[in-house]
């Protein structure tokens, strides 16, 4: 019955796109953080979290995403989100996440937006 999270990465011209598939709870959040920090070690400063494959999150998982946002601010990088379900989008806005990590409608806009 475990709702696992699969994470895959696409590295392209300075932007690393992290794709999630499944539930972002504490384990899911930790897995995203592990992947994100590895990308930072590789030198990526622009990360995009594409949540098209995630329909459910919980606040414990999101709190780990906040930790990643904090790390990105620290290294003067950027983390963006795209392809959120309306409910996840609403949840992120309730929490105020968009103030620190831009939310984009689709991946193309997100990659362009992060590259600025």
């Amino acid at each position, binding site marked *: 019955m475990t709702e696992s999270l699969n994470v895959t990465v696409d590295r392209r011209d300075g932007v690393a796109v992290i794709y999630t598939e499944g539930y972002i709870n504490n384990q899911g959040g930790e897995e995203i953080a592990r992947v994100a920090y590895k990308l930072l070690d590789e030198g990526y400063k622009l990360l995009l979290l594409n949540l098209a494959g995630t329909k459910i999150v919980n606040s414990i998982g999101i709190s*780990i995403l906040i930790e990643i946002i904090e790390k990105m601010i620290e290294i003067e990088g950027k983390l963006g989100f795209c392809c959120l379900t309306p409910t996840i989008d609403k949840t992120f806005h309730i929490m105020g996440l968009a103030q620190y990590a831009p939310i984009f409608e689709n991946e193309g806009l997100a990659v362009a937006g992060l590259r600025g």
Partner: protein
Amino acid sequence: MSSDAVLREVTLALPMAPEMEIEASKTAGAVAASMRMSPDRIDEVRQAVIEAFINALEHSRAEDREVFLTFEILGEKDPEKLRITVRDHGVGFTPTEVREPRIEDKISGTNRRGWGLKIIRGLMDEVEIRSGVGGTIVVMSKLR
């Protein structure tokens, strides 16, 4: 104006175990779908139930390690409102003493948690919390 007559009721008792919040949210989704709530509103209900369940799991310190949920479809003739009650037999808390989380504080602080009630209030139309020595009851409603 919606009527508070109960047209249909589903009850559930779940152990406080990892990912039981998913089971609770699935039931919430099925009940909401049965009253023809829109898919986006169903997802909001499911998210709120996940947060309420996790709050009970993490904070209640209930000795019976169970969460009790009631899903009630309310209306005069047709379904108008979904009322969900999430109850635990834990130690309780004082809702007025819970500080509203702010992203500014969370980004720079060490405690990034504590979002559950804020999310529930943001997603549901009405939320009432009763808590004391016998445990905590969260009653949350959403119009169809």
